[in-house]
């Protein structure tokens, strides 16, 4: 219990710093913010109104306090382009990105866990080298290029899958899943390479332990030892570390969503940047960081639950 409380208290300064950084973003804009948002030809009155709207006519601490107060109430401000509440926009887009992230994660696990096990069990053999090579290829291939190659092959040449677009799951589950395949694989391959290396080294470490030698020594088959004794312990760090992939996944999805025209969270940020909609950028960046902090916290707690040695 003390472990849990300490871990939660530790996130408070991080959260505070994250909000300060996100708040500062708008103040890092070189020159006059109102001019940047409205353009050179805007009237002085419009600029003054914009400065007032952004709260820039107040002192910094007051601005931060007001902004933080709003954020704590779930109010991320209104979009500078179409006046919709940013929080509503994010709420609408997060499930799309969530589904995509989950699908990519499943792809990554399906590739990484079996490959990692084979690679560790047959350490130093040809399959191990092949798996290692695959990991390097997976880590090096630009996700958006892989996506384009798959679009060419599976969408344009073979016509099996749609080349872009998004259909809500509630609207047409089949079409939704078909549209998810290519983006999920393109994003998942890179994560699978990282995860596979984790799985391999974790299982190798476990297989080097005394109790594994004992299990082998009393005559158990390799298969039984690996699956019943080794894997159970090797998976603990892999499961928890895999939660840390969420940050990379969220970033990678920005490009994937743009490429496949999927109306997700990442595309919201990119569009907002080009429209100079700083309020939306600010809100979206804040939410992405909060998600990462939250997942890291959950992962640490899960690690403590799975492995009592951590709770100190």
């Amino acid at each position, binding site marked *: 219990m003390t472990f849990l409380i300490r871990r939660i208290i530790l996130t408070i300064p991080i959260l505070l710093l994250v909000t300060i950084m996100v708040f500062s973003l708008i103040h*890092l*804009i070189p020159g006059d913010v109102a001019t940047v948002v409205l353009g050179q030809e805007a009237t002085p009155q419009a600029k003054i109104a914009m400065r007032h709207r952004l709260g820039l006519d107040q002192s910094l601490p007051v601005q931060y306090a007001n902004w933080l107060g709003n954020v704590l109430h779930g109010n991320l401000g209104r979009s500078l382009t179409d006046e919709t509440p940013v929080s509503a926009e994010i709420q609408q887009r997060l499930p799309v990105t969530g589904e995509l992230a989950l699908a990519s994660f499943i792809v990554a696990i399906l590739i990484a866990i079996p490959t990692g096990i084979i690679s560790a069990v047959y350490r130093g053999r040809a399959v191990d080298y092949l798996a290692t090579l695959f990991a390097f290829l997976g*880590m*090096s291939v630009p996700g958006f290029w892989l996506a*384009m190659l798959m679009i060419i092959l599976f969408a344009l040449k073979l016509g099996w899958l749609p080349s872009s677009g998004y259909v809500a799951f509630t609207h047409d589950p089949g079409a939704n899943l078909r549209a998810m395949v290519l983006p999920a694989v393109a994003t998942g391959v890179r994560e699978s390479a990282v995860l596979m290396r984790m799985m391999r080294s974790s299982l190798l470490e476990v297989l080097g332990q005394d109790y594994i030698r004992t299990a082998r020594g009393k005559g158990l088959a390799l298969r039984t030892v690996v699956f019943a004794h080794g894997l159970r312990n090797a998976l603990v760090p892999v499961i928890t570390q895999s939660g840390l992939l969420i*940050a990379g996944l969220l970033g990678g999805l920005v490009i994937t969503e743009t*490429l496949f025209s999927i109306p997700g969270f990442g595309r919201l940020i990119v569009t907002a940047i080009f429209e100079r909609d700083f309020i939306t950028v600010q809100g979206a960046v804040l939410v992405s960081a909060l998600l990462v902090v939250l997942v890291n916290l959950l992962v640490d707690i899960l690690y403590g639950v799975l492995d009592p040695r951590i709770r100190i």
Partner: protein
Amino acid sequence: MSRELEDRSPLLIVETGDDLGLTIVRSESPTRIFLRRFAHNKLALIGAAIILIMLLAALTAPLISPYDPQYQDYSSLYSQPSRAHFMGTDQLGRDMLSRIIFGARISMAASVIAVLIALIIGLPIGLIAGYYRGILGEWIIMRIVDAVQSFPFLILALALEATLGISFINAMIAIGIGFSPAFIRIVRGEVLRVGTQDYILACRAIGTRDRRIILRHILPNSMPPLLVLTSVSMAGAVLAEAGLAFLGLGVAPPTPSWGVMLTDAQSYIFLDYNLAIWPGLAIFLVVFGFNVLGDGVRDSLDPRFSP
């Protein structure tokens, strides 16, 4: 067998002087051990070769390009690979090979500049955080590092570019800032590791000043992991620059850049697959090169990590 023996060879090489019958014992320098191990790592050598070739291509681009990368030949749009155009031409009739060669300049520059920025930020801050623990090191610096690392890297880069303005150099600053926490952590960790060793205590005991201990003793001894991180970060920088350029947040067209070429390729994907193949392959090769290079350096520095 002999390979195995060589890999585990002790630090001593015994040479027998045949004329006098003397046995001369000299220790092998760490650099030689490193080079010998590295030379045995085929994948790392391939990586080094790829990087070297790309670097040469970037430096000598105007000399080796068959065409002007901006020259638009409207009589041959979307031409497929041929004797005249080894990689074909793009939607404006520009020679793909020449654009790939010139594109190497942007990507290689990105790998160097972004990592240099990360080093300039990370090295001093990491040293300070490790050497002066207590409120400044533990509480202020490391919590800020935690906070920066809470942002998904690419989203942080996007946000920074959105505020600073869209340009190549701002993209480099954004990537460099995004990478700096990893450098701060590695340097700090090394300072903590090296700082407790006896020879540092001895330095302190004889009254060596902090500055000298940090620069002459701690820094050189923290180089190995820093070298690995540098190589791997260069891979990440190339990938990130290409990604930002693909989104339209890197170099502005018509400067030839692999990321921008892929944006074009996506727009014309229904017309010509050929445009998509080459720039992606180039990015992939460079990133692969830096990645296996970094891994080879790691393996050669520390035999425990070898597979």
